């Protein structure tokens, strides 16, 4: 993908959030960002789909809380082309009927789609791009099962347990798509972690606090890098301006200047002194800072261009991490796991930090930091006013398929049904900056939608049809 199309895909809020955007993103030196090289240049990646369908829906859940009754949806060219009561059926189009249509589920914390080696990689760096490790055709069987369960897309992340996991990607799970179509957003989030047991036993408390400091240190280095870059841009502009002015001056006053110089020369000879050429400060061109891909990625996170997802569990580390990141104003922080997040719920609400909960049933094999995890966490955080997201935990690929059941369990343990549905659809899409494509059933969005025979997340409801980028990938027959 060319650089131009990268910017086309950056969500508007992302641009808005970056106050220095004009200078720092758009004018960033070529290569300052990791090259994005996935989708073809011709705009919408799903445009290749020639399939078209008309869905007669009893109910369409456009987004949580917004429901339309008895509407028709035209799926064409990979997108939702029309939605309404009076949508005309083009001749010969395949018609599908269903009780409920809603957006496909998104797993914002998945292990499906990336190989086990990359998942467990501990030596990932901020600039490591999961998009480079994704095999869009791998784990075919599991991907199909996930689609059947209604999970259409996922955020996959290399280095899930590493201190810095690098840049995660959002992918469609349909194994029949090309790499370009499958990648919804190659650079979606920056992932880090604090205080995890990595291989050995639990870390001691000082090391854990040290990891919090490292997060802040990494963000600072990103901020400094960006600051440097901005200053350079500024200095360069100033210098260029000064140079231009001076040149104009010189042009205009060339004769006067020559006379002055001649005069000076004569005077120097007279005084038997050495003649000093006049110095212009404009001679000193600002030096271009050297490119550092890791710091560039950190800078993007520190400036909120990418959300920063930090897996952190214990109360002490949660508290310290929130303290340490308090001054990074534009940071968009998401806490993953967050077993003891209730202790900092107020701060989370205040700072609008969302929490990515993995409703885990793990018990005996649970690592130290997960001890005390229970299915009620999501419900209690939501009660406290925290925005809750639900993910499968990013370690076991098979769990992505069962994310809807895990979400149902969270509902059974106190989470509002609507909140769980939001977490799996628009909530996840928004937090991963793919809400322009996924998460709701709206005209113009990509057709990654489900046709159900009942309300979503209900035990008796089954997924009848699944569309992925406008392609019908699940039917009651397959």
């Amino acid at each position, binding site marked *: 993908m060319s650089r131009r199309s990268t910017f086309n895909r950056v969500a508007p809020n992302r641009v808005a959030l970056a106050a220095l955007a004009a200078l720092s993103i758009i004018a960033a030196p070529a290569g300052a960002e990791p090259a994005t090289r996935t989708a073809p240049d011709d705009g919408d990646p799903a445009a290749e789909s020639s399939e078209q369908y008309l869905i007669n829906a009893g109910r369409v859940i456009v987004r949580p809380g917004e429901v339309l009754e008895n509407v028709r949806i035209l799926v064409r060219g990979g997108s939702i082309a029309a939605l309404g009561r009076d949508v005309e059926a083009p001749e010969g189009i395949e018609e599908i009927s269903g009780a409920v249509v809603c957006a496909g589920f998104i797993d914002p914390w998945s292990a499906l789609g990336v190989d086990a080696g990359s998942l467990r990689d501990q030596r990932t760096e901020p600039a490591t791009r999961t998009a480079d490790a994704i095999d869009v055709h791998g784990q075919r069987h599991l991907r199909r099962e996930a689609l059947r369960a209604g999970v259409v897309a996922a955020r996959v992340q290399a280095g899930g347990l590493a201190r810095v996991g690098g840049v995660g990607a959002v992918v469609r799970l349909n194994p029949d798509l090309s790499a370009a179509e499958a990648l919804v957003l190659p650079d979606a989030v920056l992932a880090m972690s604090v205080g995890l047991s990595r291989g050995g036993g639990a870390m001691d408390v000082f090391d854990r606090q040290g990891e919090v400091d490292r997060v802040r240190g990494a963000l600072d280095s990103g901020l400094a890098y960006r600051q440097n870059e901005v200053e350079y841009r500024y200095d360069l502009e100033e210098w260029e301006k000064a140079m231009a002015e001076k040149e104009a001056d010189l042009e205009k006053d060339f004769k006067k200047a020559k006379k002055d110089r001649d005069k000076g020369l004569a005077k120097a000879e007279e005084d038997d002194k050495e003649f000093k050429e006049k110095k212009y400060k404009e001679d000193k061109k600002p030096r271009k800072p050297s490119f550092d891909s890791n710091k560039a990625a950190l800078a993007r996170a520190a400036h909120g261009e990418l959300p920063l997802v930090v897996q952190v569990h214990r109360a002490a580390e949660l508290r310290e991490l929130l303290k340490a990141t308090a001054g990074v104003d534009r940071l968009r922080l998401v806490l993953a796991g967050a077993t003891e997040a209730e202790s900092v719920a107020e701060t989370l609400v205040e700072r609008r930090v969302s929490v990515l909960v993995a409703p885990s049933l793990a018990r005996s094999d649970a690592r130290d930091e997960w001890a005390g995890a229970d299915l009620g966490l999501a419900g209690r955080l939501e009660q406290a006013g925290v925005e809750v997201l639900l993910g499968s935990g990013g370690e076991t690929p098979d769990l992505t*398929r069962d994310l809807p059941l895990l979400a149902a*369990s969270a509902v059974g343990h106190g989470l509002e049904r609507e909140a769980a549905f939001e977490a799996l659809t628009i909530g996840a899409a928004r937090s991963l900056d793919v809400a322009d494509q996924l998460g709701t059933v709206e005209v113009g969005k990509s057709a990654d939608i489900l046709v159900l025979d009942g309300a979503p997340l209900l035990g008796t409801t089954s997924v009848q049809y699944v569309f992925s980028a406008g392609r019908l990938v699940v039917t009651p027959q397959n």
Partner: protein
Amino acid sequence: MLILSLALASLAPASKPLAPVSEVFAIRAEQLHLADGTVLENGLVLVDGDTIAAVGSGVSVPAGAALVEHAGHLTTGLIALGEHAGGSGELRDSTRTVLAGGRLAHAFAPGHSQLEALLAEGITSLVLAPSAGSLSAGCTAVVKSAGDTVVSERAQLHIGLSSASLLSNRRPTSYSGALRDLEALLSSAHGDFGAAARGELPVLIEARSRHEVQRAVAFVAEHKLRGAISGAPLAGELAADIAAAGLSVISDPRSPGASQRSIDALLSLAEAGVPFGFKLASPARHANTLRMGVALCVRRGLSPATALRSLTVDAARIAGVDERIGALATGRDADLVLWSGHPTDLTSSVKAVLIDGQLVYGEL
């Protein structure tokens, strides 16, 4: 919800003394689930002491008895098969291959802290079973998850026919040796083995891979035993053979991420009419795993009614205690769970649990 006894308004954890609701009381629920799968709208259960005195739509509440209205589902308590909670990790003697006459009931610690998690998921009874590694570790026990009730201290005779029972440095080391030793025990006609051989005591046969299931089925048929096969994820692929031998199946816990093939195997059991129940194996497993297992099956097409049976009446039959638990029926133990929705739907939550007529979790 109406409640006449004020003392019950607070949540009562299992470890605290059990609070009696009253000697005679009734609960009326919008949906009341009977053992045969029928659902009574606005059905009523009348409890007298620790047993169910009457169940039905037209049951009249005696004067002076409390009546609780429940806007949700009412079922009997769920039963977890193959359970380790409350056994203090002492459910297998590792130095003995055969512990003839062994009683897992004697390892049961009433009021154990591990049991509280079970109540929160509506599990009122559990079958304490040994962990793998023995040719026979004795008899399983059925106990309640609150109080000290032992429903049966001689529920099933445990028999290990999986590779886990065959250690390389202890007799038997081979399948053929295990069969020979078991045959000798059965033909002795003594004790629990004698009872099993006469068909008086059901067996719980551990088998993992499909050939082990086949071997177990042949063994059961040859010796005319009755009981259940436990621990084989793909047992359902041999559903016809299992049905022909009159056996049941105890499924391993089915956690999220379980292979679709193993879920489909369970569905084959239902199709062949083989009764099955679920192990939980807590505390290693989260108590929610029990309902998760059936939810995985329901998603693939198992009817919620069959799913609920696998957690109640079928499980009780497998453990040989269906005379006492597993159904809302007159004369059975008053083990009741009040749910917000259908129990096999994971979005439903447990509102209250009663064991032997006593409120042990939640509030009425």
